[in-house]
């Protein structure tokens, strides 16, 4: 088949942010999958909650609030820094600010991981005691898996930012990583409510 040139693509930019970037769409796909995992785990919580007349079932006590509140406050604080970093990355002007922002996110992420370790003893139940314990630990485990995965991801990204030149596509990578961190923060809020508040009010 003969061809007829009707246009040229050379003038198009060779990188893109957000909706315009393919990577962003892939990330969205995986966040949809993981969101579905969270929704179904929360659905399992609702189902098991409906089967148990008291919640938590005796002799389990309600979880202690303090570590969960500390983690939640740290998450919200990190999100402020995270959004600032995303804005810096999108501007593509200040490599120093981007490196600084990623470093700050690493420190905050590590603080959250450490604070998370204090949450588990305060759940006042174990995964193998009863279905309540199982489903509470499930929610905490799923979220911690995301927290640690994204933190390691940020470590690797940070290492490359310090050892390699930053090109426009790396600004886009940082921007996407910020999007994933927002997902980790937002997904925590319903889990925090279900684990800590629901047993007190429902």
């Amino acid at each position, binding site marked *: 088949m*003969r061809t007829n*040139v009707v246009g040229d693509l050379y003038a198009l930019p060779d990188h893109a942010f957000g909706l315009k970037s393919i990577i962003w769409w892939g990330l969205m796909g995986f966040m949809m999958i993981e969101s579905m995992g969270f929704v179904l785990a929360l659905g399992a919580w609702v189902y098991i909650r409906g089967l148990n007349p008291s919640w938590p079932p005796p002799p389990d006590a309600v979880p202690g609030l303090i570590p969960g509140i500390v983690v939640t406050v740290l998450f919200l604080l990190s999100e402020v820094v995270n959004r600032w970093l995303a804005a810096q990355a999108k501007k593509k002007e200040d490599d120093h600010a981007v490196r600084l922002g990623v470093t700050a996110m690493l420190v905050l992420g590590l603080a959250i991981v450490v604070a998370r370790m204090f949450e588990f003893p305060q759940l006042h139940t174990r995964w193998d005691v009863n279905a309540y314990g199982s489903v509470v630990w499930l929610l905490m485990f799923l979220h911690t898996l995301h927290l640690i995965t994204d933190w390691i991801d940020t470590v690797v990204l940070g290492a490359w930012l310090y050892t390699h030149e930053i090109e426009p596509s790396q600004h886009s990578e940082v921007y996407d990583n910020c999007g994933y961190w927002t997902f980790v923060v937002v997904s925590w809020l319903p889990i925090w409510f279900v684990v800590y508040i629901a047993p007190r009010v429902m």
Partner: protein
Amino acid sequence: MTRPPKKTTGPAPSPRRPKKEATPVVAAPVIAAAADAQLEETWADAPGFWGWLTTVDHKRIARRYLVTAFIFFLLAGLAAVAMRLQLSKPENTLLSPARYNELFTIHGSTMMFIFAVPIMEAVTVFLIPLMVGARALAFPRLNAYSYWVYLAGALTLWIGFILNVGPDIGWFAYTPLSGPEYSAGHRADIWAQMITFTEIAALAVAVNLMATILKMRAPGMTLSRMPLFAWSTLVTSLMTIFALPAVMLASSLLMSDRLLGTHFYNAAEGGDHILYQHLFWFFGHPEVYIIFLPGLGFVSMITATFSRRPVFGHIVMVLALISIGFLAFGLWVHHMFATGLPRLGNSFYTAASMAIALPSGVQIFCWIATIWSGRPVFKTPLLWVIGFIVTFVIGGLSGVMVASVPLDLQLHDTYFVVAHFHYVLIGGAVFPLFGAFQYWFPKFTGRMLSETLGKWHFWLFFIGFNVAFFPMHILGLMGMPRRVYTYPSGMGWERYNQIATLGGVIVVVSVLSFIVNVLTSLRRGVPAGDNPWDAPSLEWAATSPPAPYNFAHTPVISSREPLWEQREVLPIMTGLSTAEREVLVTTPVDAEPDNRQSSPDPSIWPFVAAIATTMVLIGTIFSEWALVWGAVPLTIAFSGWFWPKRPRRGAKQEPQ
């Protein structure tokens, strides 16, 4: 093999980007030839085994997906033959009860997770970039990873079977049978991790296809001009994304109950077995549609080509696909009528189950109208379409029957259900799949399949399938239960079982004729040329088989049937790099050119990452700590995967 002529007929302004300053380029033939040579070099794989291991070419990976899934189809088919021989007479002792349990488990698990979903994805992974005019999939390395993980999952199941530790709990592994009380050992764990492997692979493909379809369509291929196969793939991908996490959660919680002593499915400690069924069927029902929606896409493409006209009611077809996608998530409870549900629940799910027959029926009528109002050419692919319509309608009608609770309670766990879902799944997926093989084989290989052998294959399969499965309706109505290794004489079931076994043998002969057809056609088939069927969609503008870069230049389209609209001259856009792997990114709705992005080179890291994933998943069968130590190789593998190509810091100013 033919390659498209490089001649161009001169520049013209871009029709899609009036605001952006496009720079028309006149490529002289000599320059164009040099550019094509450079493209070949840029998109080529390394030679030999290393190239085989590191390739990220969607076509090579799709071909190995196809071959692997087909081999497992044959193995699962042999398991079915063994069961049919066992049932061909009462009180038969050919198979022991334990072996029979393993066989129906591995048959169902393989057909659903290792054959049906992956083989549909394989065809799709091959076709979609070509059909939308892209040079590659959105995430080529993810695609390679997906294949290796899938292979590891398939081998886990079958090596377990060969070592006599294969699962024996049915393809849906209900608790409490699969739980710690009734399934000691690791048979159930192998099943659960096979699920994890294959679902990771399927999800990776789904994300890849969604991104490719939404962001990499050729300029001009607006959503309203997108081929119906791409629509069915998009809906399937979204369904996969929303459905598969449920089975991963169900099987992971099962593993957790077995390994860690959790109580999700333990009623004594506040859990519930029915929770497993809800999670499983929230996946399991959409899974049926995930399997046959690509088949509906095949049917639409084949019907248009061989009816010599566009599919009747294109927009209605798209709406039907989307509504099936939504409704499929509202039906899962009809698999659980026998568990005892609230009456309102029964009524709702009965109504929803009957409602989904409407969009399915709309599609059937549209295909019939297409053939009726076209100039049908009854080549083998169209025969498969007609076989599909007949079979699928029978399966759909028996589905409407069992959607009714009173009848379902009567027929639950009988052979009527076995007949129903084989009519739906083989009718809805395997008939279109064989039609698709016949239709796209020239694109896969550059050669035509034999029409004569193809017709033998079709008729033997159509007859054999109906002889094998239609009597099962009657057996079910007579009360023969599923999953029993034998039955006493005098029940009146012998004759129908013997007929069914005879049908199974005819199906085997039919599949053998297909294998002979493929093997002989690969060597001696008629060279196909680019578009042997005079088909309208864009994949037929590529060479047969396509070059590693698919298209030398980006095609531009202005109708739903671009190759019928533009029979002589294909409009193209130049400007993508020939020296680096580069793809065009377009806008999701209007497919306007938006930016260029680099596409990854071949890499060993997807393979390494799949090995690391395998270590974690196999390790967790034996110890939960595998999740911890397994994180190390996984982190290394994924870091290698994404290792930056850009210069080290401070090295940017150095001379090149």
